[in-house]
């Protein structure tokens, strides 16, 4: 399963692309922090790429790894999970569970050949709107570089 995205990665190809690849990223945001941050970032007129589609959950620990898989399956190029800082979870310890789950999930996906940058876990508190915008921008760029996931093409048994 070697060169899933070789073509896309080649700089030559990139320059040839007339239309820039716009990755589709799903963001699971915790109600209390990250979502609040995104909210605030919006009201603060802070600029960040529009590539991330946000799904609000009560807590990052609500994010069932199955959702992440589902997102990729449905065609997402990257998934962002963001919650409160460790120790600051509104649900006492939810984000620790998230941390455990997502790192496991990352390992699982890596075995399928998923690049690490496609799934990202971040702690963003309500006030950290700049961090929020930075994370979104950064991730968008990284996933853009990785190119489309091309899930069906690359992973369906030949």
């Amino acid at each position: 399963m070697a060169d899933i995205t070789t073509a896309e990665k080649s700089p030559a190809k990139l320059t040839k692309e007339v239309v820039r690849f716009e990755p589709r990223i799903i963001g699971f945001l915790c109600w209390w922090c990250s979502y609040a941050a995104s909210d605030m970032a919006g009201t603060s007129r802070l600029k960040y790429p529009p590539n991330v589609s946000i799904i609000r959950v009560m807590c990052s620990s609500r994010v069932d790894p199955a959702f992440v898989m589902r997102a990729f399956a449905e065609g997402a190029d990257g998934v962002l999970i963001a919650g409160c800082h460790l120790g600051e979870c509104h649900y006492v310890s939810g984000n620790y569970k998230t941390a455990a789950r997502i790192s496991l999930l990352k390992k699982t996906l890596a075995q399928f050949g998923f690049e690490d940058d496609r799934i990202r876990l971040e702690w963003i508190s309500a006030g950290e709107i700049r961090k929020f915008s930075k994370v979104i921008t950064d991730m968008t760029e990284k996933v853009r570089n990785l190119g489309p996931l091309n899930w069906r093409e690359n992973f369906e048994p030949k």
Partner: protein
Amino acid sequence: MEETSVKMLKLTIDGIETEAREGETILQVAERLMIDIPTLCHWKFVKPYGACRICTVEIEVHGKTRMVPSCSYKVRDGMVVKTRSEEVIKHRKMLLELMLARHSQVEVVRKLAHEYGVDTTRFEEMPSEQCINCGLCVRVCDEVVGANALTFVKRGTERYVSTPFEGEAESCIACGACAYVCPTGHITVQDIRDRKYVFSELALGPTTPIHIPFAAAIPGIPVIDSHTCIHMQTGGCGICSKVCEPDAIDYEMQDTFEEMEVGSIILATGYKTFDPKRAEQYGYGRLDNVITSLEFEHMSHASGPTGGAFVKADGSEPKSVAILHCIGSRDKNYNEYCSRVCCMYSLKIAHLIREKVPDADIYELYIDMRCPGSGYEEFYNRLLEEGVHFIRGKGVEVSQMPTLATTTPVASNSKLYVKCEDTLLGMPRELPVDMVILSVGLEPAADAEEVARVFKISSKADGFFMEKHPKLAPIDTLSDGIFIAGCAQGPKDIPDSVAQGAAAAAAAMSLIDAGEVALEPITSVVDEEVCTGCKTCLVVCPYGAISFDEEKHVSVINDALCKACGCCVAACPSGAITQRGFDDTQIEAELAALLM
């Protein structure tokens, strides 16, 4: 001696007929009759020793007269005791004369001897020794304190009291009991262990183990501080139970756990101060005259260790004092936040010092003065008028020797040098002062983390409890019915704490008043049909809202406890748990819609 039926014995003391319990000593009976028998080696809380023999009295049993020491001689039936017969007086005079020869300068001996008309001794006088070898200290340390740090050394005329190998006794707990019982003042605490009693050991606790927690405590009953109580430490002492007539002292009493069902809880667990030992550069714990602001408060209190006098470790009055702000606050190395109260209390300290030592040089070393609040700015202005030197610049180091080349050392070995950068003058400075007071910041109470865990509330990164919303719900927590107030939520001064406390109380009241609780709408539910009873959800729930129904072999979620984090939903391997409003299908639909 522990006999169940106490036999009463009849005896006569100095012509007074009296009764006594079997096993009582003559001295005990005499004391009851207010008959004065002099003693030197006796103290009622240690076993009779019979060394000084001053308490010797004459007794007559069955027609035979004998001289016996009253402190250890047990009463017998029909005994006739004479405590001041000619024989006895002669005897005591002789003993006192013997004592005078060796202890001519000991006040207690001189006084007693004088009472018996003995002012000079016929015996060869020796250089006066303070210690009269009564052994009280040794016995108190052994029998009462149980530390057993003191002992007699050698025997006969060479006998003296000391610690093992004349060194520092490992088992000494510095309780000072020996010094307390010593009749001659030979033993002082400093003598035994070269301890700086007031300063480096300055305990912020009560001065005695038994105390009423604070003025106007309710109930106003004394308690025993188990950390300083000798009995709790060594199993010895127990003197309070012996003197307490109603027999109210109970060492066995344990902290009890009272279970109460309540509708709402206010957490006002306060704070602890920053431990300046963590910031070594200030020399706290290392240099004698570096104290914390709280220690200053303790000292300046009229019932404190110095009776309110403001003194240095050597007991002299400091003529210059530096007050260092922001110790442990607004410092990336320790705590980043502002502790909010330090500026104001530092001003108060300066004010108090000005009162106690009017001519003292007082320096306030601040980053910037934060005096918001009613009348605060005015107080600051007043201090400026009182001639306190304000230096804008944080104190960075306290040392005994000047470190800047520009500083000339002051000829006094007890001077401290405080280094700072005066940002108004734009130059480094070094202030020679007698004393340094560190204005320590506030930190979450030591057990804040534990409390947060127990109450299932969350904390901020700095460890203070987190409010539901910093502006809209500053006293609420995510758990309904649990409110926070005061410094538990973050550093604040008294007016703020009072306001928040009142608010929390009102919130709790309103909850109680409502009589019913509005539940979270987004709680999780278990589909009993699907649940396999694997109990995974029980472990993940941070609120303990999930219980297991053994009969049905399914998990059950308590709606009132569930705070709707959805953690269990994600964890449920069988998909039996769904979250109202956030069930899997809804989220998946959302996903699908987004990725269409």
